[in-house]
């Protein structure tokens, strides 16, 4: 019993600290995954093994531990590196084109498909292409010759 109690005492606070630590780490990872590693090619600060990205993660961790929100940490990095540091461009101003254009393109493509399909549907059924009587006659003759 005494041993159990001692084990519980040993594990208890350690577990608590671990839970709080991993919570911070989750927040750091979440925020860092949206920040661009500025010395890499299309890698986030969370994924990059570079020294600078590691230092940036430490800065994110410091700010999270100071109780700063995701937006506040992002704003800090934007104030230092510009919007380039965000992996996803903010949805405003000129950037809206990036977000809106793919949907507009799909809509426009759908419109074209609709118009073409409607034109096909409007064509009168049973209209056969006209055949030059000279060729028709030749086909008939050659078929007859084969018999």
């Amino acid at each position: 019993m005494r041993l159990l109690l001692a084990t519980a005492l040993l594990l208890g606070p350690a577990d608590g600290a671990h839970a709080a630590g991993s919570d911070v780490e989750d927040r750091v990872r979440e925020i860092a995954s949206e920040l661009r590693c500025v010395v890499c090619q299309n890698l986030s600060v969370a994924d990059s093994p570079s020294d600078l990205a590691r230092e940036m993660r430490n800065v994110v961790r410091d700010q999270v531990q100071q109780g700063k929100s995701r937006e506040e940490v992002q704003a800090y990095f934007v104030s230092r590196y510009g919007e380039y540091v965000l992996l996803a461009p903010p949805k405003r101003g000129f950037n809206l084109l990036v977000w809106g254009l793919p949907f507009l393109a799909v809509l426009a493509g759908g419109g074209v498909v609709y118009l073409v399909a409607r034109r096909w549907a409007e064509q009168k059924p049973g209209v056969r292409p006209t055949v030059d009587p000279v060729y028709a006659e030749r086909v008939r003759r050659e078929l007859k010759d084969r018999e």
Partner: protein
Amino acid sequence: MTWKRLLIPLASVPVILLLAYGFRTDPKAIPSPLVKKPAPEFRLTVFGGGEISLAGLKGKPAVLNFWASWCYPACYEEAPLLEATWRKFKDQGLMVVGVDIQDKEANALEFIQRFGFTFPNAPDPGSKVSIDYGVYGVPETFFVDRHGHIVYKHIGALTPGILEAQVQALLKGS
């Protein structure tokens, strides 16, 4: 029927405008949001002892240079220029400060000795100051006026022309 003929040229106008905008901007030139803003405060321990801080420079225009001993050849090209500029203009009130980033102390000291730096140089533990200045790589140089505002940021090795012109502008500025 005429509107259909105009459809394709008209539709291509916004595409051409978008491309014109995109190709005229240099994707590698990422303007620092810090230019024309107050320089972030820093406090660093200089190699060999002593402290240097932005507050401690008050009233003095400063050239803040981020370097590393492994940054070859760019940092090696501009190092003699920085030392020469410091010697030439220190009596007129110019400060030159070197910030050594992501470096080994022995290599950094060797670099300082090699170029005979006499202006203060300090390591940046944890790259805290570098990140605060939005530094991407080395070398990068910030020109800070006597009011503590960043007036210009240079990425890459400094050239004599740029360094001289920026320092003259700093010293002239009220």
